[in-house]
């Protein structure tokens, strides 16, 4: 194992007694517990960690946190692989294996780096201009471009890990556990408020872990430890580390992603990640700020890094980010970073300060360490191709342009840059929060929000430690009070830190290059290779809206969502357009703040838990009988019951023939059933069904059609009158819940005066439907007290009695066109009834049939299925069901039937189709034309809705919706199919027993 040559001998929040081995791009290295992948790579002197997206230039570690644009890795392999993680946020564990994502075939030898030579040919909008038109070119090149585009690869296998969801409620949610968040949580916690404080890192502390500032007279990190102890002793404060608040939604619903085992490596027992759905009375946003870069030529070379990140690597990880540094800054914070670097063993060759004057305290930091300060200077270019070898500096004029004066090159391998700070306003903006522009710091700060939420500290544009602590403390107190907590709590003085006398920052986002064309190498968006030249070009080409510029140049559209680039891009755009930054505006911040795994979003709702499965009381019999099942809504229904080596068609043929020639039996338990009671039930039925219900006698059934108010068929079913004010409605199996909700809606919202009560009883009843010539004989065998002849129990009548000694309701209703008895028994007797029917029916050749045979049998009779013959655009008249539509009364949808479009003569109408070739079964959904052509376009006049081979008819049959279909009966139409054209004759939509004699039997 190589030595960690950039590791400091002491210090840092790493455990040198716990060495961890890991590999990056196939090479093995060693780091320590407490490292991130980025700090461990840095400790090993690895400078180049990736290639850029478009130009494939080498890139190095740029930050120490969530904003990282360069060090993007694919973690592990196989089903647990995770793409596009930021190495700066990946905690090191033993055996970790990672690879850079955007290099093919390897980081060192990147064939696509040749793109870099063609950079002038790949300006903004290149992909749009070249590939969106003509289309064939895009198709030819898409695969190549997508592969060249790189970025990570999603796992191909099912996710083996477990995830869960947890709902939580609190008075105060504090987002961010830096000094501000800690102060807020301490203060709110002391009032007794229920507090949740969440931080994305492995421990609380934020910037206090990265720098050497003091709080209440102790080193920041020690003060953090004291605060954490207070939390441990406070039952009302819950601390969530490794937890990212990624979305802030309406009414203070905040989504948190807790990474519970990721830091231990793959395959650890337990829940890998947990999605917290927090409802907070008050939110304190203490998410801190990002340091922002300054754009100059070759600012993407490995070794260019945010100044605070460079300091964090020294202080927190005890790693030297370089051998010799230059710090380029426009504000005082660069000086603190320079001091930390110098004290950590990285000599600082110079501080290049864009300002003529620094704050006194800042200047003193440089002076005591003998660091040369170049005031009024800027870095204009970077020497070195594979990594930083030096910084070219020059004097800036008053307008912020480099003059070329006093130009010199300062040798260095680390260029630490501070362009000021951008508050992390993401969560504030997720749910309608507005932004204000702070012109002192030239940054956007949170403005008005419709939510009970407040930003504090750096997230609110307060960048000094002492002020952050006060701001957080105050926010914690206010939030607790606003959440209704009356107690004020002890220790009401904010934690204190030293106050400095800072000098203002100088507004400098971009140092224009002294070289012709130099802007094409001045990177704004490091991940997507968007340069200052691209933004200028977009503006020149007329893209003035920031949203358009973003899409045209892809600025901020990479996996980092522009955390380091958006504001700089805006500033450059504002310069080109000659409009102030706040007028140019910002792009929209949308959740998630950082990427969330699909596993966490799905939680436990996967596999068997994705959707409930509903089974009838007879389910196990069907399974034992070898049934194949079909999903109908959530129901598992027997589809067909193959015997031995029967094909599906053979089984269905046998079942269909049995149902018409001997006895068929169908498990009809899934049919939706609604028990309706109340004095106004008839009135209600008259309003929701298209036909009339006044004359229905007790013990009689009637078929009904329901329409939406638009006149289109919504559901259908049979309703039976059980008593004076008592009815049982049936619905389609898949539509039961929808119909129930629909009826409730009308009762509650439109007709509350009606005395009607609805109860879903679908699952209370098991139902077996007997049909065929032998059905009555079997019923006779099993029943003593039931009238079964056609006089006493005619078609569409119901009787109560015992079947196989089980109390039952027997309905003479039919979906097959045969004599039928639908036997309903209490669900718990379903299996007993079924067994009795099978045993007693054996001698008659009783044959169970499934949904496929049921469909064929009803199609033979031309009976519709709502949802198959109808699709929300079909009226009763379209289906030839005029007789079902009452002229005498109003009902839901009636008025729509006379709207000009609904009353058209040439609407699509239900007809039958008989193919010329009797064995040809048309595919359902096949388009129908009257005048076929060799090639599209052809005028479509309709489509096939149902199509089967019918063993009873002895040929194929189909139902179709065809324009003016009824007037086409006898004509021929065509179905153009791949490789052939099928001719069919239009017929009446009844194929079997058109007189219906068998039904009444």
């Amino acid at each position: 194992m190589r030595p960690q040559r950039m590791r400091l001998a002491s210090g840092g929040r790493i455990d040198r007694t716990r060495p961890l081995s890991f590999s990056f791009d196939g090479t093995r290295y060693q780091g320590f517990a407490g490292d991130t992948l980025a700090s461990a790579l840095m400790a090993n002197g690895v400078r180049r960690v990736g290639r850029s997206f478009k130009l494939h230039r080498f890139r190095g570690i740029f930050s120490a946190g969530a904003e990282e644009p360069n060090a993007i890795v694919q973690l592990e392999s196989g089903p647990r692989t995770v793409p596009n993680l930021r190495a700066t946020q990946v905690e090191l564990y033993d055996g970790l294996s990672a690879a850079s994502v955007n290099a093919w075939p390897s980081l060192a030898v990147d064939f696509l780096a040749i793109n870099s030579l063609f950079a002038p040919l790949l300006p903004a909008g290149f992909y749009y201009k070249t590939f969106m038109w003509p289309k064939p070119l895009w198709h030819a090149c898409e695969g190549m471009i997508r592969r060249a585009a790189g970025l990570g690869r999603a796992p191909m296998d099912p996710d083996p890990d477990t995830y869960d969801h947890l709902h939580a409620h609190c008075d105060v949610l504090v987002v961010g556990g830096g000094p501000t968040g800690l102060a807020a949580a301490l203060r709110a916690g002391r009032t007794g408020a229920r507090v949740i404080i969440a931080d994305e890192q492995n421990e609380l502390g934020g910037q206090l872990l990265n720098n050497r500032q003091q709080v209440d007279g102790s080193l920041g990190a020690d003060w953090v430890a004291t605060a954490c102890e207070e939390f441990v002793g406070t039952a009302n404060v819950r601390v969530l580390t490794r937890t990212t608040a990624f979305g802030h939604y309406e009414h203070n619903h905040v989504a948190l992603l807790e990474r519970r085992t990721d830091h231990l490596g793959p395959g650890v027992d337990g829940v890998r990640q947990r999605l917290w759905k927090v409802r907070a009375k008050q939110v304190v946003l203490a998410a801190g700020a990002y340091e922002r870069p300054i754009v100059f030529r070759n600012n993407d070379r490995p070794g260019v890094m945010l100044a605070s990140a460079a300091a964090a690597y020294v202080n927190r990880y005890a790693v030297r980010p370089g051998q010799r540094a230059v710090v380029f800054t426009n504000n005082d914070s660069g000086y603190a970073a320079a001091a930390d670097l110098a004290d950590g063993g990285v000599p600082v060759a110079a501080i290049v300060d864009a300002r003529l004057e620094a704050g006194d305290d800042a200047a003193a930091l440089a002076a005591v360490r003998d660091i040369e300060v170049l005031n009024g200077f800027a870095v204009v270019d970077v020497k070195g191709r594979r990594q930083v070898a030096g910084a070219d500096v020059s004097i800036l004029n008053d307008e912020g342009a480099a003059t070329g004066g006093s130009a010199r090159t300062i040798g260095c391998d680390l260029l630490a840059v501070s362009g000021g700070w951008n508050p992390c306003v993401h969560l504030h903006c997720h749910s309608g929060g507005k932004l204000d522009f702070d012109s002192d710091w030239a940054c956007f700060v949170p403005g008005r929000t419709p939510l009970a939420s407040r930003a504090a500290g750096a997230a609110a544009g307060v960048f000094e430690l002492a002020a952050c602590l006060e701001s957080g403390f105050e926010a914690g107190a206010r939030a607790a009070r606003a959440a209704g907590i009356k107690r004020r709590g002890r220790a009401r003085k904010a934690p204190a830190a030293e106050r400095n006398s800072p000098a203002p920052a100088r507004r400098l986002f971009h140092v224009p290059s002294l070289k012709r064309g130099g802007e094409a190498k001045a990177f704004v968006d490091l991940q997507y290779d968007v340069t200052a030249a691209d933004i200028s070009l977009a503006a020149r080409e007329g893209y003035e809206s920031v949203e358009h510029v973003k899409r045209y140049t892809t600025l901020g559209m990479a996996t980092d969502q522009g955390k380091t680039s958006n504001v700089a891009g805006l500033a450059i755009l504002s310069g080109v357009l000659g409009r102030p930054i706040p007028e140019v505006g910002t792009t929209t911040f949308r959740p998630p703040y950082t990427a969330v795994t699909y596993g966490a979003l799905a939680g436990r709702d996967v596999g068997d838990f994705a959707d409930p499965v509903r089974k009838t009381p007879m389910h196990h019999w069907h399974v034992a009988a070898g049934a194949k099942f079909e999903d109908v809504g959530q129901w598992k229904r027997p589809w067909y019951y193959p015997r031995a080596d029967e094909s599906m068609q053979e089984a269905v043929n046998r079942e269909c023939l049995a149902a018409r020639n001997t006895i068929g039996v169908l498990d009809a338990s899934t049919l939706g059933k609604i028990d309706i009671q109340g004095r106004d039930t008839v009135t209600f039925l008259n309003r929701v069904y298209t036909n009339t219900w006044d004359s229905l006698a007790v013990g009689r059934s009637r078929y009904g059609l329901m329409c939406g108010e638009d006149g289109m068929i919504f559901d259908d079913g049979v309703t039976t009158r059980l008593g004076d004010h008592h009815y049982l409605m049936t619905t389609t199996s898949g539509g039961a819940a929808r119909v129930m909700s629909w009826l409730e809606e009308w009762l509650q919202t439109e007709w509350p005066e009606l005395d009607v009560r609805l109860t879903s009883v679908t699952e209370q009843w098991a139902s077996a439907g007997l049909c065929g010539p032998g059905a009555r004989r079997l019923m006779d065998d099993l029943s003593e007290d039931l009238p079964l002849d056609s006089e006493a129990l005619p078609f569409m009548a119901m009787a109560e009695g015992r079947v196989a000694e089980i109390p039952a309701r027997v309905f003479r209703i039919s979906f097959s066109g045969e004599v039928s008895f639908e036997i309903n028994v209490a669900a718990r007797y379903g299996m007993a009834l079924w067994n009795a029917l099978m045993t007693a029916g054996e001698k008659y050749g009783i044959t169970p049939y499934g949904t496929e045979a049921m469909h064929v049998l009803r199609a033979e009779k031309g009976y519709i299925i709502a949802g198959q013959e109808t699709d929300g655009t079909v009226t009763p008249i379209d289906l030839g069901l005029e007789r079902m539509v009452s002229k005498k009364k109003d009902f839901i949808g009636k008025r729509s039937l006379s709207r000009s479009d609904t009353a058209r003569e040439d609407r699509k109408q239900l007809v039958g189709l008989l193919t010329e070739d009797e064995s040809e079964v048309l595919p359902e959904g096949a388009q129908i034309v009257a005048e076929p052509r060799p090639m599209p376009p052809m005028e479509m006049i309709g489509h096939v809705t149902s199509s089967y081979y019918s063993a009873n008819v002895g040929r194929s049959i189909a139902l179709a919706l065809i324009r003016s279909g009824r007037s086409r009966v006898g004509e021929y139409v065509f179905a153009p199919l791949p490789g052939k054209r099928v001719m069919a004759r239009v017929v009446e939509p009844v194929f079997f027993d058109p007189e219906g004699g068998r039904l009444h039997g």
Partner: protein
Amino acid sequence: MLLITCPWCGPRDEIEFSCGGEAHITRPSEPEALTDEAWADYLFNRTNPKGPHAERWVHTHGCRRWFNVLRNTATNEILAVYEMGKPRPDGEGS
């Protein structure tokens, strides 16, 4: 996710509810007497204000009862929750 206060169950997550669209649209008592335009207006046309909007919600995964909500569509602030049949509490609209 909205936090909606069901008049019968109290504050619950939006996921328990379904929205039934604009409130206070009464079904015409004599649809047959309406012109096509008037019927189409009842059937299809809805207001789409930026600001307070009266809408119907049902506590689908709770008590299954319908009620009205006055919600600011721009801020999602819920200004009032009131029973079916009651007028808009802000006196606006029909």
